[in-house]
């Protein structure tokens, strides 16, 4: 299952918890951000997306395709907002955030990367949803004149892409 909905501020993507669909969710999001004037490689945005989604797919959902991961993408001028949620029980994010991996540890760096690269990072109490914000210079919000023109011309027909 992979569903993309258009929302007032951007996109909502829901997908079955597997890693191939995670890749697709990242690609869809990057393509959408390009339509909102995001330029460059978007390395840090892709990294944030991947770490939050890997956490939801691998740990939150335990790679169970019967579980759904959701990604909400909202743009504002110069700022991206993301909410990633899974249907798992969550985790003790306070303890994990305080637990720094040893230099030779082969796991446990995802939360460090989120904390280092996000401008804002907040988990819900249970730990099965995370909200991120990232500054992207030049990013447009949904109400920009260019967007309104695009919608008037019927360019924004991405919603309901269900597979």
């Amino acid at each position: 299952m992979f569903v993309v909905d258009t929302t007032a501020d951007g996109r909502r993507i829901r997908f079955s918890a597997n890693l191939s669909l995670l890749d697709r969710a990242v690609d869809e999001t990057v393509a959408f951000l390009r339509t909102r004037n995001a330029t460059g490689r978007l390395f840090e945005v892709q990294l944030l997306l991947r770490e939050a989604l890997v956490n939801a797919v691998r740990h939150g959902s335990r790679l169970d395709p019967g579980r759904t991961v959701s990604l909400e993408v909202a743009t504002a001028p110069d700022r991206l907002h993301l909410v990633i949620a899974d249907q798992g029980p969550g985790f003790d994010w306070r303890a994990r955030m305080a637990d720094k991996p040893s230099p030779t540890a082969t796991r446990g760096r995802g939360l460090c990367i989120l904390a280092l690269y996000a401008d804002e990072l907040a988990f819900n109490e249970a730990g099965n949803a995370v909200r991120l914000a990232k500054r992207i210079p030049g990013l447009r919000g949904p109400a920009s004149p260019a967007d309104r023109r695009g919608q008037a011309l019927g360019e924004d027909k991405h919603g309901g892409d269900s597979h």
Partner: protein
Amino acid sequence: MEEIRIEDGRTVFCPSGDIVASMADAMRSRLRDVMHEHPGPLAIDLAQVELIDSVGIGLLIAAHNTLAKAGGRLILEHVHPDLCGLLRTMRLDKHFQIEVA
């Protein structure tokens, strides 16, 4: 599909794309085979790699840990500046030998 070459007595492993969770299991297995077939110095050429996530970093550290047991060190070649920044931020430049693209 990655390429393997032997240069100056060392094995060079060249992934053909990003080192991320969706391909990590296959690459980990392939890298293990390569290290078994070609023991000794190992470099990973990242010329075609634009992004490495935490799962990919774990894979590189596992390879480095194996090499370190024999007194070796993982060499990363042609590392994109963004990736270089990530690896340095995670203080992994103290373990890997990083050669910037």
